[in-house]
């Protein structure tokens, strides 16, 4: 494996490894100290451990205008995104979507039109959810939309696992990785002071909390849908559910969290320094957060406007954004969650070996 980003990361890491002042910040640096020299395998591994907290940049004695010109958050972001694109089948698609946020918007519009025209969901209607689209039809449409991309992503992860030299997973690798991801350990700055990101060289915990809201919000929404599916098929309990039912409690809480989290993430991203982020893929990052925001916000509106004339339109937008989100899942920043978990598992293997 060879690329400009990998070469540049190699140059920078050799300097970092002779300094090591940033060792306490995160797992990427702790991994670095295990190596004397760097290659694609360990650089890609470190890149996927990196959360772009940018603390190492602000602490660095060797940033521009110093001739060493270190910018590890950026070069690791470049390697990281490149590693998702390279490992997932259909790299070209990934590259296009990651560098063009409007592709996601276009896809959503397209899906909305399809739902409207082919799926026959009227734009103006006050009918309830399942009166507009039958449950069977929903399942028929979304099962392949969901499973297909997951298979593609799984293939990508399988290849990635080979690249970073992963071995057979044990329970402890899973639990260590999930704990680190669940607490965003590598975004706490090392001693809990938070990260630099939106506020220059001051530490802040906002990004971590916004990410928590987003991630747990998303998981709650996912749980809501899963519970509803089980209730539907397992117990013959069909929607609509009351507010105090499990699917609604999970879904509404998750939706609110997801909307708040993504809104905050978008705001923080706008305040962050593009020079410390990924090259040429910033648009894709915005696009990804935006589509997540649209999924949850349209869901909440759908619930709120149920029974009004806007229900049809809201349902259309909601389903379309979910469809666009799922179809592009292996090719958007959504990939980061899965590759991050893989990297954390690999790191658990390497530290416990």
């Amino acid at each position, binding site marked *: 494996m060879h690329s400009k980003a990998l070469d540049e990361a190699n140059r920078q890491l050799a300097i970092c490894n002779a300094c090591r002042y*940033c060792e306490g910040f995160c797992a990427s640096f702790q991994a670095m100290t295990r190596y004397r020299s760097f290659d694609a395998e360990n650089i890609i591994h470190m890149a996927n451990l990196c959360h772009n907290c940018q603390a190492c940049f602000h602490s660095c*004695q060797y940033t521009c205008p110093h001739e060493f010109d270190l910018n590890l958050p950026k070069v690791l972001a470049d390697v990281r995104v490149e590693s998702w694109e390279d490992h997932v089948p259909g790299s070209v698609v990934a590259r296009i979507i990651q560098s063009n946020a409007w592709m996601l918007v276009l896809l959503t519009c397209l899906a909305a039109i399809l739902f409207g025209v082919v799926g026959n969901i009227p734009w103006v209607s006050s009918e309830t959810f399942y009166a507009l689209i039958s449950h069977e039809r929903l399942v028929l449409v979304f099962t392949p939309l969901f499973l297909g991309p997951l298979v593609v992503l799984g293939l990508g992860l399988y290849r990635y696992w080979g690249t970073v030299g992963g071995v057979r997973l044990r329970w402890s690798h899973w639990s260590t990785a999930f704990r680190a991801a669940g607490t965003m350990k590598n975004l706490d700055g090392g001693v809990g002071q938070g990260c630099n990101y939106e506020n220059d060289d001051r530490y802040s915990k906002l990004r971590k909390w916004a990410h928590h809201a987003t991630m747990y919000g998303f998981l709650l929404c996912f749980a809501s849908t899963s519970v509803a599916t089980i209730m539907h098929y397992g117990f013959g309990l069909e929607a609509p559910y009351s507010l105090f039912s499990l699917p609604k409690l999970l879904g509404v809480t998750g939706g609110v969290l997801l909307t708040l989290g993504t809104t905050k993430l978008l705001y923080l991203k706008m305040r962050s320094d593009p020079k410390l982020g990924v090259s040429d893929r910033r648009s894709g990052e915005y696009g990804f957060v935006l589509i997540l925001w649209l999924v949850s916000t349209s869901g909440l509106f759908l619930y709120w406007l149920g029974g009004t004339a806007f229900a049809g339109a809201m349902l259309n937008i909601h389903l379309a954004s979910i469809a666009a989100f799922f179809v592009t899942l292996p090719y958007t920043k959504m990939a980061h969650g899965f590759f991050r978990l893989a990297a954390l598992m690999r790191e658990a293997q390497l530290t416990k070996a």
Partner: protein
Amino acid sequence: MTIEIPKIEPQKELISIGTGSIAYDVIVVGGGNAALCAAIRAAEIGAKVLLLERARRSYRGGNSRHTRNFRCMHYSPKGVLTDQYFEEEFFEDLLKVTHGNTDESLARLTIRASEECYDWMQTQGVYFQDSLSGTLSLSRTNAFFLGGGKALVNAYYNRLEDLGVDVHYQATVLDVVVEERRFDGVLVDIRGEQSYIRGRSIVLASGGFEADKEWLARAWGDAAKNFLIRGTPYNTGEVLRNLLDQGADQVGDPTQCHAVAIDGRAPEFDGGIVTRVDCVPFSVVLNKHGQRFYDEGEDVWPKRYAIWGRLVAAQPDQVGYAIIDQKSHDLFMPTVFTATKAETLDELAIKLGLPVDASIQTIEAFNAACQAGDFHPTELDGLSTQGLQPAKTNWARPLDTPPFYGYELRPGVTFTYLGFKVDGDARVSFSNERASNVWAAGEIMAGSILGEGYLAGFGMTIGTVFGRIAGKEAAEYALESAR
């Protein structure tokens, strides 16, 4: 990119002693650790403070940017510091490196105050981390800053902002006006605009003169042009010179600087920590004529790296070449530049630009003098050469396993010793009489305590302790005199 430091012609006519409004209670000259501690302390007490940093914002912080820890006394485990480190042991460590060239009362004052510095620094937004990998030997004595010295500097500048201190970058102090041991104001160039700013008191914390090679050359001759400066190019000592010329009392050997052997390919300035080359104890070091000149294995590297700057500086063209073979390749910290590598010693000598015959002869003689025995890289193993001059008294193993690796070594200057003589209040004196309102902190006065040698992390301790003292004293004086 090299930093251009323009010579600025002072517009002396702007100076108006005793007239015009007094804009600040305390003016702090400098922007590194000591200056920042002084400014924070003064502002906390309620003084109106101005800090003048010569560097641009991205290079702010002087040599503190390159530091990583401070040495701290403690009687029980404290934060990241393990075990205990008493005043007596601390002071003995200082005596060892300075050969007694210290002021005991100032030294003890510094050591005693270091403990409370730890807590104070934390309240200012500094975070500590466990000893870095490869520095376990320091985990008891030195507290490492999370992210290193630049992170500490950032925290302090943020604190200044919160306290409402005025900070000017690219502010070069051209003249510190002192009359009858009383400070009146500073003539300063701020981004090309000169002005005279009056203050009630001043703290001088603008470092040493190690970046002024002409000044170094006065002591070292032409050899100084081959020196590399490990820290900031802004430490050219103008403020120090300015006050010494006005009769401020001085301390420390005016000709000496602290230098270590670093990678010869390091940048001329600001190479910092990464340019170190830690392979010397496992190597054979030749000069440009292919001759050995000192016992490479005299002691463990943390105790010897500091003398190698001088050793190399004394060699022709101020250059040395450390040569190792494959056996030793992974025994020391990774280097920033990759070693020159060759399959044979002849080839390596050619690549390094060494005379082949002489070099090979030296190495063969060295190899022949090596004895069988157990090699222990982390302790004095007594594996010594026999009948060789100079001997290598530890870790002497023949260079016989290709590939061979070579590093060019040059003297890297860390800091200078010449500075102001101060008392326990950090007050500067003129002809042995205390100035009314002039204080000093950091490298600019460290020579009082660190007369020679160096103790890891002690510069930051002196800077923090005396920065805090100077800031407090200067602020209290200013607030008192304003009444």
